């Protein structure tokens, strides 16, 4: 019933008064002429009202005449007549066109792209490769050939082993998998030495193959030979080449320095602020402010981006941006030296602790000094590390 009513509204309908000696005759003539009508209301024996489609009403006059009835149009309704009334309302038509374009764009164009599953390959690289193949924000969904795109991208980015594009409405989800690193298998048949890669004092030296060049307690520098692949056979007084292998640990030192300018500036907020709003639509930005210049000479800016998400977590391609500018003034101020020194020392010690590569770093010392109004803090530490790298002999 609702569908029928909607159909009648779309095609347009009219309400008429039928007057005559026998309105029933008029109804029968209409049926004979193939004209359908509905909602027949009895008013008097000689007067009834009915509804019919606007198209059928154009052919009704001869039928009424032949049935000996007169017809009077009382009401018009439907999209046909409404649209005629709205024909001169240009803003409304423009709004309807914008809405139609919006619906079309939401369903036909890719407006957002999410890349998932990456670890080492940057998503920007993947998006750039897709863009080179003609797929990006603004591309028509119907033009995307996922299979062809996959083949092209996998050839272009060899680090990827898997690539799929799933498009839901205007949102594209790119799922990638990267190839695992193939471990490098050392060729033990080639002669090689072990060379120190840092400075330290050897604490453990276990040589499996080759001829050891250092002992426990030896000081080694970066580049020093630790184990030689050239082995002297003492009994035969000959030499042989081998692929050196050893576990060598050494006490190594770490150092980190932090500095701060003592003639600093202090920011003091003035309390004045300026708020601006903008709408982000894909690549486009619509500013809701006229003056694009910066509101203050010195300011801190905080941007908030409010995005809308669908129930499946995918984001819609538009967002409201709120930018707040807080004005401040600067004054020269001398910071508290002791406080700054403590902060610097803590920062330097944290840097040293981070250089331990997993092993415990013991603090050896801390030095704080001032040169040319610059406060320095240097921390040193010590840890036991495995040293030595294998270098093939030429």
């Amino acid at each position, binding site marked *: 019933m609702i569908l029928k009513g909607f159909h009648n509204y779309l095609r347009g309908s009219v309400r008429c008064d039928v007057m005559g000696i026998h309105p*029933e005759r008029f109804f029968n003539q209409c049926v004979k002429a193939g004209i*359908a009508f509905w909602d*027949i*209301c009895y008013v008097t024996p000689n007067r009834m009202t009915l509804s019919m489609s606007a198209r059928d009403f154009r052919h009704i006059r001869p039928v009424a005449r032949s049935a000996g009835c007169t017809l009077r149009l009382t009401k018009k309704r439907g999209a046909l007549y409404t649209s005629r009334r709205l024909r001169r309302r240009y803003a409304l038509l423009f709004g309807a066109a914008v809405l139609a374009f919006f619906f079309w764009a939401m369903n036909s164009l890719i407006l957002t792209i999410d890349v998932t599953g990456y670890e080492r390959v940057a998503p920007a690289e993947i998006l750039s490769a897709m863009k080179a193949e003609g797929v990006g924000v603004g591309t028509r969904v119907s033009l995307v050939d996922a299979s062809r795109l996959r083949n092209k991208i996998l050839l272009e980015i060899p680090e990827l082993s898997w690539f799929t594009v799933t498009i839901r409405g205007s949102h594209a989800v790119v799922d990638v998998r990267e190839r695992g690193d193939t471990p490098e298998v050392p060729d033990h048949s080639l002669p090689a030495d072990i060379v120190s890669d840092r400075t330290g004092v050897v604490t453990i030296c276990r040589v499996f193959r080759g001829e050891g060049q250092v002992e426990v307690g030896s000081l080694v520098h970066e580049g020093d030979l630790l184990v030689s692949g050239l082995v002297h056979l003492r009994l035969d007084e000959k030499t042989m080449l081998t692929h050196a292998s050893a576990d060598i640990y050494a006490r190594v030192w770490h150092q980190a320095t932090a500095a701060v300018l003592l003639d600093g500036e202090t920011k003091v907020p003035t309390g004045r602020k300026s708020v601006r709003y903008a709408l982000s639509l894909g690549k486009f930005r619509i500013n809701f402010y006229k003056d694009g210049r910066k509101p203050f000479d010195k300011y801190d800016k905080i941007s908030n981006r409010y995005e809308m998400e669908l129930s499946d977590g995918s984001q819609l391609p538009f967002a409201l941006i709120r930018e707040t500018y807080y004005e401040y003034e600067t004054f020269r101020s001398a910071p508290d030296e002791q406080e700054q020194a403590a902060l610097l020392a803590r920062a330097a010690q944290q840097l040293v602790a981070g250089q331990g590569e997993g092993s415990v770093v013991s603090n050896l010392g801390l030095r704080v000094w001032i040169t040319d109004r610059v406060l320095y803090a240097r921390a040193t530490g010590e840890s036991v590390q495995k040293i030595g790298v294998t270098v093939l002999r030429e």
Partner: protein
Amino acid sequence: MAKMKLSQRLSRALELPADAALPVPRLEITGRNDILITGKAVLLEYSPELVRVARDSCEVTVRGTDLRICAMDKMGMQVLGLIASVEFRE
């Protein structure tokens, strides 16, 4: 009359639906408020108390209160209202 009987017999023998083989209206009554008359029926009289339709020699009279022809076209008509009786006359 003899022709009608022959066609009636024939439609029964061939197990054809009567409304398809014979020139009679088909009535579909739903509850007391809805009656659907299909077939090429002619409206003879219409008032809120009475709707009279005919096809060839068969005449159907629907009596009731607040009767209203909801829709009508060459396929038939739908009558809504409180139906009291349906009468047939040859």
